[in-house]
């Protein structure tokens, strides 16, 4: 049995770990609430935008470069992860989905390129020795619309230059504080937008200044919004995942402290008993 001193040491070290995990959980909870508010605020806008675009798309027949479906030669997969670890399977799940998608695409005979948003994804891709085209890091915590614009701009440029013919984004969709779902969406070419609630009567829309002009500005905008939404969803998911995993870590520390304390008391009891036996033995010896 381990010495009393060692057990005492371990107990105190587990206790300080518990304090850290508990604090991290609280920080994650605060960040999570903020992220959740932002995503809930953005959702109506994103959805309305989809509806407006759907109305546009059903009347527009002009081809737009971002809508045009080309022969797939090269697919770009973007992994959206966090900058930090300690959030359970959050980042690993993304990587698993990315690897799976890469295999699927390769089976179809298309070349695959990779990009990453977030430090973890960047590291994981590099560690696997996969080529990384572009990586955006350091946006965790203060995601702004500018980040989304920057990413969208890069993607659109490369898409128009035909660096790749399809763009897929892999991210954690935020369902609730306990559930995050890995979701794989195609960003480009923009899917034909289908509205869930079509207008009962489809009068032709009038456009000012022109159909083309509206379309030209609205399509990139929609892409930016989609990316922005994914960024926020991912952040909310990350904090939620961290909250859960820190909660579990705190619980595990509690269990460990309990079992170590038991062990400590047993050892203490054993040593007292041993000392008593020694004294009694000594007295007996003296008597004789």
């Amino acid at each position, binding site marked *: 049995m381990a010495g009393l001193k060692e057990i005492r040491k371990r107990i105190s070290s587990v206790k300080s770990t518990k304090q850290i995990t508990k604090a991290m959980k609280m920080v994650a909870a605060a960040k999570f609430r903020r992220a959740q508010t932002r995503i809930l605020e*953005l959702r109506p806008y994103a959805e*309305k935008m989809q509806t407006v675009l759907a109305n546009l798309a059903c009347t527009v027949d002009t081809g737009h470069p971002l809508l045009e479906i080309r022969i797939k030669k090269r697919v770009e997969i973007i992994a959206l992860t966090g900058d930090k670890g300690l959030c359970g399977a959050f980042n690993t799940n993304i990587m698993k989905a990315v690897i799976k998608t890469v295999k699927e695409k390769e089976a179809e005979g298309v070349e695959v390129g990779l990009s990453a948003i977030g430090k973890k994804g960047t590291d994981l891709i590099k560690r696997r020795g996969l080529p990384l085209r572009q990586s955006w890091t350091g946006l965790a915590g203060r995601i702004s619309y500018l980040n989304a614009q920057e990413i969208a701009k890069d993607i659109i440029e490369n898409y128009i230059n035909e660096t790749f013919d399809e763009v897929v984004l892999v991210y954690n969709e935020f369902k609730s504080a306990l559930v995050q779902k890995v979701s794989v969406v195609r960003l480009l070419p923009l899917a034909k937008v289908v509205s869930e609630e079509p207008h009962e009567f489809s009068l032709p829309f009038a456009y000012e200044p022109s159909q083309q002009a509206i379309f030209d500005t609205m399509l990139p905008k929609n892409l930016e919004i989609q990316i922005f939404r994914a960024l926020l969803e991912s952040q909310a998911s990350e904090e939620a995942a961290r909250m859960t995993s820190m909660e579990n870590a705190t619980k595990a520390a509690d269990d460990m402290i309990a079992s170590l304390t038991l062990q400590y008391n047993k050892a203490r009891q054993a040593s007292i008993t041993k000392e008593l036996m020694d004294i009694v033995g000594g007295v007996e010896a003296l008597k004789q």
Partner: protein
Amino acid sequence: MEGKIKLDIVTPHGSVLSEEVDEITAPGSEGEFGVLAGHESFITSLNIGVLTCKTGNKTEYVFINSGYIEVTAEKTIVLADSAERSDEIDAERAAAAKQRAEERLKHADNVDFARATAALERATTRIQLAQRK
């Protein structure tokens, strides 16, 4: 509900307004226009400006920082980059932004001229609207 339009103003930072109104005046990119119920369906982009909506004898002003508007006979959706009701405008912040933009315009050799102009326009519109109430 005769003659009413359902007006929704949404931004990436949340919904600003969702009401039944009688009349809307919006700052379209091709000029200001009015909308009444039964308007022909159309879509246009919006400039920086003030959207006015009337309900009965109540008039409300909303600051719009460019975006899009979709008008159908009974429903109007405004997708704005940002929007504020007149009573939500932070006049002090707008004044500070105006000063900053003017500063930048003064020595605008290497700064993005268009961006500073847009910032100035936003600030001025906000201040005007804040003073109007």
